């Protein structure tokens, strides 16, 4: 689906533009990206927010990656790989001649050490758990061993990873930041400052970080992919309010508003004909939803939760946010494998919702609370939901709080309902599995977990595990079908009311070129810096 969109977009671009665009862009030029917040860290095993996520991807590499602008896996630092028949042993042949930015050749030992570094409790990696399928994981986490027994390196160019259980998402996991390869000597030299002095194998080399002001990267001339990246220099400027960043872009001082177009300026920016080719539009692996705590009466009654699903007017909410999303009918976003185009979800039907409430014995309505992050447009969305639910007799009090407080209320199970906006799930990797365990499965339905509905359906969990044990290529269609069934059943139990799937709009200067898909990359969120190019260098 995703691939198709990209292919069509490229074809249209090629048909419309001059033939020169068909050639690969020339290297050169520079770009300036703004972010309101300074980055927290560039340590790939620690950084986990949408500002640093993609910057880290440009400095470091993993064994696997995705084709630019798509969700299609391809080998990266690995040149090729094989999977054993039982799905437990992965053998990666490393690409020869890959060098770290300090000039040293990257070897199999680096891959092993890096994965161990990510799992080591001292690293405090938020993503270490993703590597839990590797044999020996428990011993490293428990402090019994510093080495993962499941990783062996027969020679400098081969890494063999043995898993303790089959994991169909393992190749995706080898492509996320937490599995990126880092040079031991630089990590040890930098000590606690490693996150400020990153050294990787990636397309861009780190130059400087002036706290609160800017980070500068330059093109890695030794990057293993020929003629990549296109830009010579990439500067991230911090501290500017996005409103000001938009003015700076119009003035030609910056090239990309990293935070996106502020809601208050969105309509104006979209209406300006000068911006026609400057605002890239693309789907994200994102769903905005309302969680309903299945342990809180009367939300513990499935009919009440279904009624809430039917009462929310999604089209109106999409209009409130200037059509920066499409209405959602299920938990998975349309670009995600396992999305069921035949499942239309709950249609907007306030009368039907009232009937369901009556059947559930709360026909006279009830009072509940909706938690929401206090940053525009989320409180406005919460008010729309409040009005919709008032129409079927549910009296909703809005609790508009700071992000961390909403997350804490969700984790503790204190919040009856939460609007997920501002904290919502954007997938770490494009697999339905990533949309389930943490936010809908039993693993997340614990104190401090991110399953804010506290919905725990053991039977569905088991079906998920069974699906994830199907690792062979010829089983993949069947596996995705299983996940499709799991998500269809989740929707019947209605722990969530899916509301919309966000569309990303990235505002960039006329000096920059590259397909829209690169400016709204579903993996390199928000922008794939490696493949955008400067028109003044052409």
């Amino acid at each position: 689906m995703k691939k198709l969109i990209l292919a069509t977009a490229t074809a249209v671009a090629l048909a419309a533009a001059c033939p020169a665009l068909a050639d690969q862009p020339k290297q050169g030029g520079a770009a300036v990206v703004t972010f309101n917040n300074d980055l927290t860290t560039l340590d790939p095993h620690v950084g986990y927010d949408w500002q640093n996520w993609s910057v880290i991807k440009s400095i470091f590499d993993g064994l696997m990656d995705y084709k630019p602008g798509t969700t299609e896996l391809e080998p990266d630092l690995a040149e090729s790989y094989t999977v054993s028949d039982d799905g437990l042993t992965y053998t990666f042949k490393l690409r020869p001649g890959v060098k770290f930015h300090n000039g040293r050749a990257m070897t199999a030992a680096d891959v092993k050490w890096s994965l161990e570094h990510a799992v080591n409790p001292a690293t405090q990696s938020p993503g270490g758990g993703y590597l839990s399928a590797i044999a020996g994981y428990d011993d490293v986490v428990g402090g019994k061993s510093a080495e993962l027994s499941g990783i062996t390196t027969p020679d400098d160019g081969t890494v063999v990873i043995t898993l303790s259980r089959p994991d169909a998402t393992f190749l995706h996991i080898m492509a996320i930041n937490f599995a990126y390869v880092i040079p031991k000597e630089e990590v040890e030299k930098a000590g606690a400052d490693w996150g400020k002095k990153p050294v990787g194998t990636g397309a861009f080399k780190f130059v400087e970080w002036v706290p609160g002001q800017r980070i500068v990267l330059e093109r890695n001339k030794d990057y293993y992919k020929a003629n990549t990246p296109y830009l010579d220099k990439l500067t991230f400027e911090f501290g500017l309010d996005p409103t000001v960043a938009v003015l700076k872009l119009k003035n030609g001082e910056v090239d990309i508003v990293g935070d996106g177009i502020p809601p208050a300026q969105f309509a104006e920016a979209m209406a300006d004909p000068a911006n026609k080719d400057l605002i890239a539009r693309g789907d994200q692996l994102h769903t905005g939803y309302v969680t309903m705590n299945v342990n809180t009466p009367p939300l513990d009654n499935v009919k009440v939760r279904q009624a809430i699903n039917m009462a929310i007017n999604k089209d109106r909410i999409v209009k409130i946010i200037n059509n920066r999303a499409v209405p959602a009918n299920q938990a998975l976003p349309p670009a995600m494998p396992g999305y069921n185009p035949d499942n239309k979800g709950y249609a907007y039907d306030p009368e039907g919702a009232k009937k369901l409430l009556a059947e559930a014995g709360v026909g006279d309505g009830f009072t509940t609370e909706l938690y929401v992050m206090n940053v525009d447009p989320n409180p406005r969305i919460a008010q729309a939901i409040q009005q919709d639910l008032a129409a079927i007799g549910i009296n909703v009090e809005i609790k508009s709080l700071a992000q961390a407080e909403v997350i804490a209320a969700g984790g503790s199970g204190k919040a009856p309902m939460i609007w997920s906006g501002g904290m919502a799930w954007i997938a770490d990797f494009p697999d339905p599995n990533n949309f389930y365990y943490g936010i809908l499965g039993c693993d997340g339905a614990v104190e401090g977990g991110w399953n804010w509905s506290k919905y725990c359906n053991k039977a569905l969990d088991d079906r998920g595990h069974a699906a994830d044990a199907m690792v062979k290529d010829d089983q993949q269609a069947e596996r995705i079908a299983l996940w499709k069934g799991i998500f269809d059943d989740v929707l019947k139990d209605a722990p969530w009311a899916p509301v919309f799937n966000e569309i990303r709009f990235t505002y960039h200067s006329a000096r920059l070129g590259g397909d829209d898909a690169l400016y709204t990359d579903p993996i390199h969120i928000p922008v794939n810096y490696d493949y955008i190019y400067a028109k003044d260098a052409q």
Partner: protein
Amino acid sequence: MLIYLAKRLGASVVILLGVTVVTFCLTFLMPADPVAMIAGRNSTAETRELIRKQLGLDRPLIVQYTSYVTRLAQGDFGRSYARKTDVGDLIWSRLPATLLLMLGAIVAELLIGIPAGIYAATRRGKVSDKTMMTLSFVGVSAPQFVVGLSLLYVFAYMLGWLPLGGYGTFAHLILPALTLGIAGGGWYSRMMRSSMVDVLRQDYVRTARAKGVPEWRVVMKHALRNAILPIIAMIGLDIGIFMSGVVVVESVFGWPGIGQLMWQAIQAVDIPIIMGVTTVAAAFIIAGNLLADLTTPLVDPRIRLR
């Protein structure tokens, strides 16, 4: 004088300690969990427990506080949860920018407030006086976010005279300093006006006028020297006021000071940074108040410190 200073410094340490106690307790009363923020959305319960242990957050509050203050006394602010780097480094590298902005703001508010106050005082009761005082009221009340954005839009974007935010040159300083200075200038113009009105009623001013001294000379030479005294004594207090104002202004203009650092730390529940910045800011407020108290007798010998 020395005894007074010693007493005040001793009191300052106690106050600072009190600030750390209150801030420490408040960060724990905050209904938010730093571990959940670090661990992120796909973490397992084990990962979260592990991180909690690593950070020492599983220990009793009193133990955590004691170890924090002990390290603080040795100049160690601890490590940031989200950035993993030394909080002291983060603060010291950003403090100069905040101090520069405060200095600029003080200059701006004096340049606005004193002439405006003098002008209004000499035209007391007239339309120009009332206009001036209305303007000062607007200046004091306008939200700094709006003032900052408006100044940026007009002077940086439309006219292109000054840079659109950022840090580095004198030109970068003008608009943020002015944004903070407009509010302060509003206060100062009102204070300057009333102080000047009082002084202009004094006998020695009447004598000067009777001698035939020109009016501008009466105001600027004879009256100003006395009228400005209470203003000077107020400057130290501004440091405290600006410590809160910089948070907003720094985030509008992209000024890399401690306000910006604080703002981000609050979002991430990065307690070591919140504690560190609060302590340093409190130290500056205390120092500012002390400065105000110490300068008062210097400019007005009638007041003596005990």
